């Protein structure tokens, strides 16, 4: 196991990032948006439970 610096400096990783930077950027962006999106419901769990309860009769 080398240091982080040496791992990052490996040619394979550099090549991987260079070849796949677009999908990587996209995935990072998608995960960021998803986390922020789902995070806005943290205070609404009771409301969601109320609706489920109304639809499924106390589930």
């Amino acid at each position, binding site marked *: 196991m080398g240091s982080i610096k040496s791992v990052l400096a490996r040619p394979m990783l550099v090549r991987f990032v260079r070849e796949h930077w*677009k999908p990587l950027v*996209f995935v990072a962006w998608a995960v960021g948006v998803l986390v922020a999106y789902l995070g806005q419901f943290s205070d609404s769990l009771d409301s*969601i439970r109320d609706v489920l309860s109304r639809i499924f009769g106390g589930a």
Partner: protein
Amino acid sequence: MAADIVVALAFNAGLMAFSYGVGRPIVRIFNPSGPAGVGRDPAGIRRLDRGLFALALGFGAIMFVYLFLGLGDALNKPAAWAIYGAAGAITLVQYRGIAPEARAAFERVRKQRPPAWALALAAVVAGHAFLNLVGAMAPPSMADPLRHHLASPAYYADVGGFPFVPVIFWNIPGVLHVGYTVELLVASEIAPAVTHFTFSLLTAGAVFVLGRRFAGWKVGLIAAAIFYSLPMTTELASAPMVEMGAVFFAVLAVYALLTGGKDADMRWILLAGLLGGLAGATKPWALLAGPAGLAVILVVQGSGVLQRPRRTAISLVAFSFAFGLVLGPWLIRNYIAAGDPLWPLGYQVFRGDMWTDWHFEKFSSWETGPGKSLVDFVLGPWNLTNEIGSFTQDRGPLSGSLLTPILLIFIPAAWLFGAARNKATGGLLAALGAFAALAYVVWFAGYQQPRYIQVVHPLLAVMAGVGVVAAAGTRRRWLALAAAGLLGLSLVGTLGVSVAFNSGFFPVVFGAQSRDEFLEAKVSNISSVMWVNENLPTDTKVLVMGLAGWYYFDRDWLVGDSAYQGHLAYHDMASPDGLVMELSDVGVTHVLVQGAVDAEPTLLGWAARVGGPSYGERALEELLTDLELPPVTPNDFEARPFVLLAGLQAEGRLGLVHRGEETVVTSRTFGGSESVEFLVFELLVE
């Protein structure tokens, strides 16, 4: 109830078929065909595309005939049926042309062998559509239709025309309002919501053809599914609102500009202007289609703007002319009646009658959203997706304003993965981006209500569709799976939202709940409306102090809230005598004060609610003395009628005849409500 639903469905089926029949020859007059090389369909526009244009123009034409009948005070049941019948006859005359077209279209669909994912997307749209249709078949319960989208057509149907009524939102352009008036005359109260639901499906169709023409059928289908699964689409499609009509016309206008704008093909530009005008004449916020359409022309002509400026100028003028031509009747009517073509929205410019600085101040002070700084502007799309609760006052993120993350995730992917490098797709993205950006700037500068920017949702869905296809087309299987997974998760989630939203309508539609029980659970202040209907004499005229459930009044009534109307000039009344004279002049016999959560159930309690706590603390004599001077603030302006009414009550000229309980519904979806008290007074005038 069941009969109302059947009539609503049958009437709408006829209306849409006849709109197509009437619009078919109009499309031929324009004879639009796609210039070779534009988009993916060099042979010209396809049958479905042409059919949507025909339906849009035919519907607009039929509504214009009804509009002019109404402006001449001649819109009654026989006239409404006569026009409907004439439109049907025009359609039947073309039977020999339409029947083979329909057969060919059916055969083409039958022979399609779409992949499984495409069928799954179509199934999602069908699931949403079924749920929305059930919602549309329930008695109207959303606040806005009960206050204007149905309340004003009900009044127009009653008086047989479209007189100028100085109530806010009642005189604003309304193509669908004309249709709703006809439907309330000859069909049922369910019919307007079914019409609006139909327009939601037509908009999904327009999104599909726009995406298909300029970026391929996959983009079209994905975009249609994204648009139709948005929670705001769900909320709107199941109610008699007007937004879906506006966006349908707007999407087709953009299609027309993208097809003929580059070569300055006047047929397409005029067609786009007419459709943009129809959008603006359906919903005030869709007036954005005017400037946004001009922006699209500039974008699609690109460098040609500098090389051939005269051609560009002619294009802009032609689009504006057609746009204004459609809006003309409404604008002229309002200008003649009140000196403001957009009464009361143009007050700042035109200083129209029956509106005041206090009205203007009240409505221009409305604010929502996290703020108006440069940072807020840049973060707007992020906040609209991930901080929607900051735009919905106290309702939190679980509302119809909720977006899906799909738009924000995939729109940048269109550029990231190089879809914009394709000439046709790049042109599409640039034009849609220009439209959306202009609409966003105007929206951001004004009241940041998420629904007011809904006109761009279909266009954003197309851009996101381009992004999904671009991400899936990178030859990386894992990325394609990730894109499909994100899209699938989002569609499943929004289907769940639709189930949650529409499930409350199933009992009343399928007979397990009575209409009255349904209304009691879903409509604020409905008990006071029903009390008036059931207990006051038929020759009663009620001054309504409150904003809920107006559509359901059976008795003659008048909007009494000072800020929402211009027929009662409370600000000019220096004493209760002035109010008595004015109420007597307009025939008011009773006053209803609807209950409110934050108001004591007294006249001065209401004055304190709208005017501030001081109105509850000061003596009535002192408040009456203040009436000798004009109101100082919009709050004083709003409190004034309640002080005047309290003065009348103290003098024994206004007698309390009933005090009752009712509920204010805080959420139709979650079922929340709060108990309040309403008051009914009788005007005791000798």
